């Protein structure tokens, strides 16, 4: 399965994503410069983390108008999987592919730590090998990860199973004390209604190998491959 990692000016997790997919998962993977417009041949697009355009104006706001994004939107509209991690998540909300937005962390600090997240929906292209309620330990590293969405959209998202990850305690307790950044309902990752577009603040590409003492991120990419190979999700 062929993965494409989009590189915006200011992306800084593109190399990690490329390494995770090509070297760890053994998948053909290519970088896609943000000015390219050809996504033919790709099975999954990754928008990596970083500080595209220096976070000017709002995180992801300017990257959203990079030439490649029209093609990413078309790709997503065709039902193909798109995953945005951290700044990639911010770009997806700015592009309107995902609901809501990411505000400045409530405590105004840049937070860089490994944190527990609970898989709320294991019936997506990105989580189909997880158990519902499974707890993954994945690093976060962001200053603007405070998820917000209006009440009526949130209700709709809950009905549609669009909340994919929530910050939690080590045993899966979703409680305010385990909310690192002020996110509404501890939300750490959401998908669109069709579930083929996922945005998440935690960085699975940073915990893929035993040498790093954490391989919890592997299951996300394994799930995508499983989905692309025809396995995985109901309905």
């Amino acid at each position: 399965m062929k993965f494409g990692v989009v590189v915006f000016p200011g992306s800084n997790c593109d190399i990690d994503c490329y390494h995770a997919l090509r070297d760890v998962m053994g998948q053909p993977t290519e970088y896609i410069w943000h000015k390219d417009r050809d996504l033919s041949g790709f099975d999954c697009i990754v928008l990596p983390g970083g500080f595209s355009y220096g976070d000017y104006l709002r995180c992801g706001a300017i990257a959203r108008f990079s030439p490649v994004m029209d093609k990413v939107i078309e790709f997503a509209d065709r039902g193909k999987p798109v995953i945005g991690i951290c700044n990639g998540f911010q770009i997806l909300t700015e592009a309107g592919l995902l609901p809501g937005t990411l505000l400045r962390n409530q405590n105004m600090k840049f937070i860089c730590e490994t944190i527990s997240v609970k898989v709320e929906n294991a019936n997506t292209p990105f989580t189909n090998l997880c158990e519902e309620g499974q707890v993954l330990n994945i690093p976060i590293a962001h200053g603007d990860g405070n998820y917000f969405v209006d009440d009526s959209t949130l209700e709709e998202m809950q009905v549609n199973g669009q909340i994919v990850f929530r910050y939690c305690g080590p045993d899966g307790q979703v409680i305010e004390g385990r909310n690192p950044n002020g996110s509404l309902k501890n939300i750490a990752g959401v998908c669109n209604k069709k579930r083929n577009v996922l945005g998440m603040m935690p960085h699975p590409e940073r915990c893929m190998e035993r040498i790093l003492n954490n391989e919890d991120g592997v299951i996300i990419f394994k799930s995508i491959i499983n989905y692309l190979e025809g396995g995985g999700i109901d309905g």
Partner: protein
Amino acid sequence: MRYWKDCWGVNSMYYARVFITLKKSIADPQGNAIKEALLSMKYDGVEDVRMGKLIELKLENPTREEAEENLKDMCEKLLANTVIEDYSYEILEV
């Protein structure tokens, strides 16, 4: 390359200021931090602080209406995120 003189007599220059503020329903941690700082400086009368953005633009358009129409489009598409922000603007002819 287009030069200003090529447009002389066709377009007018407008100066626009766009004000972007967080919607009232959105918490503003930056505003709160500023408020706390002001209170710690003994400015006791500070009830609330909200922080926003000011964007200044020079626009070249045939009419004020067209300049305004473009500006509104820019606000909706890029300058503001209407999920969390409100915007207002003023346009002056230069």
